[in-house]
């Protein structure tokens, strides 16, 4: 009896350890992926600025400039404007960071449903809106209004989701990857859908994007203008993770399972293309930006549906 008791006790401990190990692995996986997303996203932003600078015949900033900039804000004084709507003004930066950490968990860590990732894009729009309005700054408010205005330009986002579902029959990332392993990359079967997603990537790019009206330079730094110190640092961390996730989703949805090196090469190529477009394109006014995105969405949706049903 004594031996049995010992064996049972021993088994019990082993079971507990296994559960603990799984949780630890998941936590480590999340921490690792979030760190990689921030570091790689920041370096890619640096690369984008470097590409833009070379096109304009300038040496450009160091490639780690965005990261240095981000870290710098954590040692600067955090000032709160008198007009800020507290505690919302502070909470919105934490929410922004949290939704993109959640995106990393849904994407690279668990390969969860695509629908949730697109829901995060929708929440990002709401966060942009609220970050702009919470500071009380006129630039922030203009950015806030533009965030609502540009919600119409999120049409490609939902169109991509629906068209990929029609083609693959699933919204699960693992399912989409498995479909591509069997039928080939979606980039070649749905090129117009990929084009819509590229337009979306351009519209979310940080430096001098022709389509990103919420951060256009005519309203200084848009919804970020009145966020200082640590709060700005959190916003910049979120932006780096956002950029990494945008490229990660594009590569996963349109090219399938890739190795980390292939992901990195793909991200570098996409960032260089976006840098080239941003460097040679004027920043559009809000009306033109929305109309450009809606037009691209129309071409993408109609073209993709015709390709799916008639080719």
């Amino acid at each position, binding site marked *: 009896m004594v031996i049995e008791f010992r064996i049972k006790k021993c088994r019990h401990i082993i079971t507990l350890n296994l559960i603990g190990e799984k949780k630890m*692995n998941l936590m*480590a*996986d999340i921490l*690792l*992926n979030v*760190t*990689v997303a921030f*570091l*790689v996203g920041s*370096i890619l932003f640096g690369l984008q600025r470097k590409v833009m600078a070379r096109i304009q015949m300038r*040496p*450009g*900033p*160091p*490639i*780690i400039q965005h*990261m*240095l900039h981000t870290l710098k804000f954590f040692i600067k004084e955090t000032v709160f404007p008198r007009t800020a709507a507290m505690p919302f003004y502070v909470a919105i930066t934490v929410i922004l960071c949290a939704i993109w950490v959640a995106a990393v968990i849904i994407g690279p860590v668990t390969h969860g449903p695509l629908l949730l990732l697109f829901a995060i894009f929708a929440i990002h729009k709401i966060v942009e809106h609220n970050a702009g309005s919470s500071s009380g700054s006129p630039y922030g408010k203009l950015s806030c209004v533009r965030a609502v205005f540009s919600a119409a330009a999120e049409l490609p986002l939902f169109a991509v989701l629906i068209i990929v579902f029609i083609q693959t029959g699933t919204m699960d990332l693992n399912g989409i990857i498995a479909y591509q392993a069997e039928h080939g990359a979606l980039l070649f079967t749905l090129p117009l859908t990929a084009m819509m997603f590229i337009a979306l990537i351009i519209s979310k790019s940080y430096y001098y994007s022709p389509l990103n009206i919420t951060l256009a330079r005519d309203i200084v730094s848009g919804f970020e203008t009145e966020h200082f110190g640590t709060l700005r640092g959190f916003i910049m961390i979120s932006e780096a993770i956002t950029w990494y996730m945008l490229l990660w989703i594009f590569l996963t949805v349109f090219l399938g399972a890739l190795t*980390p090196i292939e992901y990195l090469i793909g991200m570098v190529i996409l960032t260089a293309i976006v840098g080239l477009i941003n460097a040679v394109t004027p920043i559009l006014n809000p009306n033109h930006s929305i109309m450009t995105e809606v037009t691209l969405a129309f071409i993408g949706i109609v073209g993709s549906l015709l390709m799916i049903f008639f080719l």
Partner: protein
Amino acid sequence: MDNQIFYLIYVLAFVIGSIIGLVLSYKKYTEPFIRKNIDITALAIAIIGWLLALNFALIPVIPYYISITMGVFLIAMVIGMRPGYGRYETVIGFAVAGIIWILRTVLS
């Protein structure tokens, strides 16, 4: 998981190398990039870095992840130099390592 940790280490090596390269090059060069000379030290670092990163199989005594980490660190030191400096050295280093990689893998 192990592979992911290695990739995190490579990224961290790149970041740390870039910061060190930036700091050292600002101490070495007090003026902006005008004369367009090739820095021999930076060239040697770039060639060694690219060789270690691309041709780690040539040095079987060192584990591959250590070779790549050291290579990425050295590459980043040159890429991360003061704006303008280090780009010719990077291109030459990549070309030398690339040629050796082609000779080693494609032509052998």
